[in-house]
């Protein structure tokens, strides 16, 4: 790890919907996080490998490589395996959530989701990671 301890945690927000990315990115930045964004699965993978974020917020329904596939790849790669991934989805059915956990998501949050609730989940994952 080359980054200093003073650096804020980097959250990679992946969502193909602009306002979805914008709301969470804006709120998390407002709350003191560093935020990177990706609009699809492929970009998410590139950013993840490039930036090595501390937490990834992964929308599941994505064009091209979807959230489940991207997560599986990240979880199968040694470089990114330890990055907590929070699935963020408008799918309310259990099947979608179960599938997300199967591919390696550490948590599943259903949209709509209040930014502050999401922040809480991010902090929880970060704590779990350090301990």
């Amino acid at each position, binding site marked *: 790890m080359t980054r200093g301890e003073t650096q804020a945690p980097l959250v990679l927000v992946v969502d193909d919907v602009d306002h979805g990315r914008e709301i969470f990115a804006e709120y998390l930045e407002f709350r003191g996080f560093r935020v990177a964004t990706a609009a699809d699965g492929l970009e998410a993978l590139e950013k993840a490998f490039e930036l090595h974020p501390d937490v990834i917020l992964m929308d599941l329904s994505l064009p091209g490589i979807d959230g489940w596939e991207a997560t599986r790849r990240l979880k199968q790669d040694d470089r990114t395996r330890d990055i907590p991934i929070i699935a963020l989805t408008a799918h*309310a059915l*259990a099947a979608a959530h179960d599938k997300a956990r199967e591919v390696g998501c550490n948590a599943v949050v259903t*949209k*709509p989701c*209040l*930014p502050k609730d999401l922040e809480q989940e991010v902090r929880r994952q970060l704590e779990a990671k350090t301990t």
Partner: protein
Amino acid sequence: MVNIAPLDASPSPRPRTGGGIGSRPKLALVEALLAEEEARPCAVVALRWLVRHAGVERAVCAVADSESGRLLGLTGIGVSIASVDAFNLDLGDRTHPLVVALSGGEPVVFHDSSQPLLRAVETPLGNLSFHAVPLSGSKDGSKEEIGPGLLLLTGLEDGPVPDDILWAAELLGVRLASLWYRRAQAEERRHKRERSWLFSIINAVTDPILLTDADGRILVANAGAEMLLTAGEDKREGWRRAVALNNMLFSASLFTNAAESGPTRRELLLVDPSEGRDLLFEVLSTPVPIRLGETGVVSVLRNVTDLRRATEEIEENYRRLRVAEAATRAERDRLDLILNSVLDPILVTDAEGNIARMNPPAERMFTIPRGKRDSRNTEVERRVRTNDAVFTSFVSGLFVSSLHAGQEGHWRRTLSLIDPQTGKTVPVEAISGKVASKHGEEMVIVTILHDLTEAEEKARLYEQVTRHSEELRERVREATAELAEQNELLRRQAFQLEQASAAKSQFLANVSHELRTPLNAIMGYTHLMLEGVSGAMTPQQHDKLGRIDANARHLLAVINDLLDIARIESGKMPVQIECVRLPELIDEVMTEVEPVIAGTRLAVERALSPDLPEIETDRQKVKQIVLNLLSNALKFTPQGSVAIRLDHEKGADEISIAVTDTGIGIAEDNQKTIFEAFEQANSSYARRQGGTGLGLSICRRLAHILDGRITLVSQLGEGSTFTLYLPCKPRTA
């Protein structure tokens, strides 16, 4: 009573009435007596002459019959003829005064004066005194031992009897003696003739007839008897021995019956002297008097040898006949027994169909019952006649079709008879056989009628059953085909439904997804602004954003509930059974609603039964239901209290969780529909309270998934009680 007195023997002058009777009357008497050829008219003439000419008043003339040895009354004058005929004395009685007088030859006077020492004499003259004058027997005056008779005369004076009377008595005596002699000779001749006739008769009788005396000596025997019992010197030795034997046997048989006084009948076995064979006789013996004081026996022997043989033969034949008859009768009885034991009618007929015998079942069909002739009987009679006609036609038809007899020589044909009593048609199978009698000249027909009613009924039933069974099979086939078709249809429908359901679920999921995404934006931006991320706002702006937020949340709740219902209905609601401790679960629920309770002034109570068991159920869903019920209670109770109460009846396999409030209550009309989706009893109020209208619908569906149920007791304005019943263990586990 007349007593006898000896005549005075002393000589006394004879009364000469009228100086004696002239010669003319005397001559007349002689002529008259000679003119008569019979004794009685002679005596009558003489008596009349005495009455007319000799002063006699009453007179009786009796004659001595040497044949019978008796003195018999012949005639009389002035006395009854009957008394004369009855007069009869035994001449053997030598001491009798009249017999004495007769044999004395002299007249005797009998007085009526009583002289007890003397013997009483009864005569036709009664008590009158009379003179007994013996009739002189012969002209020459030679004395016979007993004169020919005696005159009894009344009206004479005592003393010597006048000479005229004596002359007349002598004249009559001579004439009577002469006539008597001639008569005796004639008798003799007649007797001889009659005896020869009798012998002829007796000899003409082939049966031996014998008269034997008391000692068994043969007095008279006819030719037949002589042949058996007498043998001349000329006969051979065997003959004589046979005769001797016969005599012995006959005498012996006579004496065995000697004691009998009447005729006796017995059998006697003698030997035929000419041939030496045995002859059986039936001996009829009759005792007869043969002379004074002696009894003989007339025996008539009837040869019954042949008769006996014939009789024996007849008896034997009769016996055989009886035996044969008995055997026949027994056979017949046995046959009857057999016939009568058969339930089917049996008839024995001749070739013309005339019934000779039948058993009771046949009688029922073919005889007219006795009884009064009413309309019913007439009907019965008509039916019997019909049966008879049918049967007779069948039997007579047998001879026409005699060449077509069945294999066993039987004929079979179905006849239609009528039950005479009920009038029902009785189909019968007639089975007939011809039976020739032993000698072949007579033919009888035995027919058994077998009732086919039952068989036909069975056949009919069988056919019916077969038909029904066929119909049934057809129906089953049709039903099966239809079922298959329906199944196919159902399968297709099920598939379609499944597809539809899947499509619906997918649609709902998509709708949910597509709603959530913009909602996420709305709520997110609102949140950013409320958090001041986009800079400070005026209080009015903040307030309005708060409203946006509240409505966004409500919209989210509706979407979530809809999704729940969709999941339940599509069967995709996952159920996770685990052991649940209800007190803990209630604690959790209470914690969650704590903020809501804090915003009210309601008293919230909880009452948990001490012996609540752990139950196996889906914890999350029970919690969701209780939470919903409790939220509702809090929502719809403006004031008062809310109570949650958990109970478990001892031994029951379910628990109950009841939520009771003192709220607005639910009208009876709405109590059913309240569980339907989007139903709220009071929509405006509910909307104000932020309900989605789907809560109870979801609760009920969830309870159902958990094998439980929810009941409602409520009264408008007074409050409601919702009770969730849950099984201790899921039934479908």
